[in-house]
């Protein structure tokens, strides 16, 4: 079983990408457990940089985003794609704030046409990213004596989505696809507690590791209902999702079911507009965690556009923008669901005519939860490279 790995340190992003590509999986390079990283982590989304530039609105029909398997039907050329997406996050609570930097390689994709409208694709993406470090001071009560302590908790890991898909373009109006998913990953935690009185008390260093495994099946379709308007839908049906500690299944839940719907309009030359929504039943994972965490289902909505911009060496640059309102899946028990709004923009830059292109995205996310004093904002930079040999 291939598990998604974590690659600590942004300077190893390229190496991580190469290794992950060779392994056929995506390395998730850290995240953190703040307002957005509660529970099993932050739902990265599995979007290509192009789709991220539209805040996810193009995810249902973007061939590089492993969401709707129908989107690869009729693919004319082989495409290899890799991307990085660092996030600069600021958490504020009760007048205090802290900044963190997260590095991610959220998606690797290979899609190959198979003739007669068929195409297959292999993709590795991040489902949930859970990496953080907390350093706190406190005290421990040792048999009635209070001793000052410093606690450090390092959590690293992610759950990834390995998808193999096949899509078929039946005709100019209809595309369908089916895909199988393997959700796998691990979390590794290291906890260190040191006492102020180091002569009498020794520090505590403890570690714990959990692995995850689950499967899912997804289907999708695309129907051009009008000459310039198409409808897209996909559904992922999750199976059992196990969390294991030392090869023993500790809890079982389900891979979250997902329903996605989108409308695409191409009626204006050189431009594409899309709106969409998705519902993800994250509560299927609720039984996998402890009673300290509550899983919520999420309803997310998107809107985005891509238009032809200025030409670069004779090839047009694509300019994108989008907006999304998302709900995050995990919160503390008794806490309200975290909501996120995203504004995004992006560019699609040709590099070698039709042979390669670079996509850039910039997203601004704001996250909050009712009743929570904490709020979070983040900048997400995406850079993706597509090669079409």
């Amino acid at each position, binding site marked *: 079983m291939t598990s998604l790995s974590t690659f600590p*340190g*942004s*300077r190893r*992003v390229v190496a991580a990408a190469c290794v992950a590509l060779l392994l056929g999986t995506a390395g998730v390079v*850290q995240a*953190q*457990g*703040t*307002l957005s990283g*509660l*529970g099993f982590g932050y739902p990265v989304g599995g979007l290509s940089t192009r789709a991220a530039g539209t805040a996810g609105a193009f995810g249902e029909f973007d061939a590089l985003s492993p969401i709707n398997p129908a989107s690869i039907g009729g693919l004319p050329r082989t495409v290899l794609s890799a991307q*990085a997406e*660092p996030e600069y996050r600021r*958490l504020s*609570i009760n007048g*205090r704030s*802290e900044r*963190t*930097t997260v*590095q991610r390689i959220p998606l690797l994709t290979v899609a190959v046409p198979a003739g007669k409208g068929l195409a297959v694709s292999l993709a590795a993406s991040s489902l949930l990213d*859970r990496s*953080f*470090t907390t*350093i*706190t001071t406190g005290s*421990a*009560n*040792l*048999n009635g004596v209070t001793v000052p302590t410093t606690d450090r*908790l390092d*959590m690293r890991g992610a759950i990834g989505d390995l998808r193999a898909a096949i899509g078929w373009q039946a005709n100019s109006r209809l595309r369908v696809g089916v895909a199988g998913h393997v959700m796998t990953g691990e979390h590794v935690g290291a906890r260190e*507690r040191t*006492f102020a009185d180091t*002569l*009498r*008390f*020794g520090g*505590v*260093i*403890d570690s*714990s590791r*959990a692995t995850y495994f689950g499967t899912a099946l997804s289907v999708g379709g695309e129907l051009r209902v009008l000459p310039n308007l198409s409808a897209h839908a996909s559904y992922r049906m999750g199976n059992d999702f196990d969390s294991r*500690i030392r090869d023993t299944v*500790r809890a079982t839940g389900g891979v979250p079911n997902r329903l996605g719907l989108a409308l695409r309009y191409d009626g204006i030359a050189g431009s594409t507009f899309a709106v969409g929504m998705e519902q993800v039943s994250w509560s299927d994972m609720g039984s996998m965690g*402890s009673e*300290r*965490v509550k899983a919520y289902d999420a309803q997310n909505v998107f809107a985005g556009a891509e238009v032809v911009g*200025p030409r*670069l060496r004779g090839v047009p*640059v694509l300019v994108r923008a989008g907006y999304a309102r998302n709900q995050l899946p*995990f919160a503390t*028990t008794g806490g309200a669901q975290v909501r996120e709004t995203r504004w995004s923009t992006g*560019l699609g*830059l040709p590099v070698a005519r039709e042979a390669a292109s*670079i996509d*850039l995205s910039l997203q601004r996310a704001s996250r909050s939860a009712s009743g929570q*004093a*904490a709020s979070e904002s983040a900048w997400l*930079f995406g*850079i993706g490279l597509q090669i079409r040999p």
Partner: protein
Amino acid sequence: MSEQSRWSWARWRAPLVATAAILLSVAAAACTENLDGGVACPSLCPSQDEPFRDTTFDAVVLDTSLAGYPTLGLSSTLLLANRPDTLVTRAVLRFDQLATSYQPNGTGALDSITTVDSVYIVLPLDTTGRRGSTPVTLELFDVDTTASDSVASVVRSLFRSDRRIGSLTLTPTATGDSLRIPVARAVLEGKIASRSRFRVGLQISGGSGQLRVRAFQLGAGAPTLRYDPRTDTLYRPIILGTNTSISNTTTDVLLSYQVYALTELGSVGVTAGTLVVGGYPAHRSYLRFNVPLRITDSSTIVRAELLLTQTRSRFGNANDSVALIPLVPTTTDSISNLRRVLDLAAEGAFASVDTAALVPSDSGLRRLNVLALARTWRTLPLNVPRAVAFRIGLEGAQPAELRFFSSEAAAGLRPRLRITYLPRADFVLP
């Protein structure tokens, strides 16, 4: 310049903007990751706070005191004492091979020594061990005999007036870092002439006092015998270190009989229900524990104390603090001889187990920090007993002992272990 080659912002704008965007994104992607946080804790850091557990229990399954330390003649210092109410010791120095020839000046040839002059026994002293402010006499005796002188009673019988070969009156607390004790010339001349051994017994008499002699330095006996090979002063003195010759024996035995002590009056030793560390001759105490694996292997120990109940000792320097030095036995249970186990034990300092300072005349509960030791138990094979031993500082060179109640004592007085630990938890699941 042609129109085509002239720089044009309109022409280069798009490539420059694209290049800048790419470089900016690459730079952002290459930034150093920083995940350190915690400002939102505890409200956003739900974690399973496992409480520390604290337990005090009778963990000792074997405790005993072993006598006879340090091994005969292998102490780096040697206590010469005449404290009739506490401790009386004697010392023996062996010079079995004497220099019997010398080189007369200018001849280049060897000549036999027929007469000697300025004969001294030189004793280097550890001045921290001096005791006694009244004059005492340090006497030397010829303790060479053809009888079995490995028997202490035989050697003791030779400390008599007809064998006295020298003496020095001194005040112990007023001595320097060495003593020169004159020896009768005729005695040494006789030994040289007869090619016999020179074995010297030392004792303090005529008052209460104590000296601590440096017995060995750099692996060799430190006391020396000095004498001039002629009566004139033109010859450098011959200086001999201690040495002995015993046929069919080991180097250790030879070393141990070069300089050694005899105890005339010492500590009372082990009494029922007690453990003794130190004394004269000194004892070491060994304690073996049975600690549940759920503590050693499935938890992190954050505090470990050996609770010993000290009982008052009146022996020797009872009011001076002494060092209780831990030893860490590391042998497997295939070695059942505890003396051998202690011979092979490591100094506690190597396992970061601290030395404690205690006063022998005190009593009450003593908490000895054995945290570093307890944390090593998890890494040891199961056939290595979890144990600790103790010796006293300046073992065999100071009249002091520490007494503790053993596991045979009443329940509340027995050695116990107090361990505070945190059970391992699978905290990784959110």
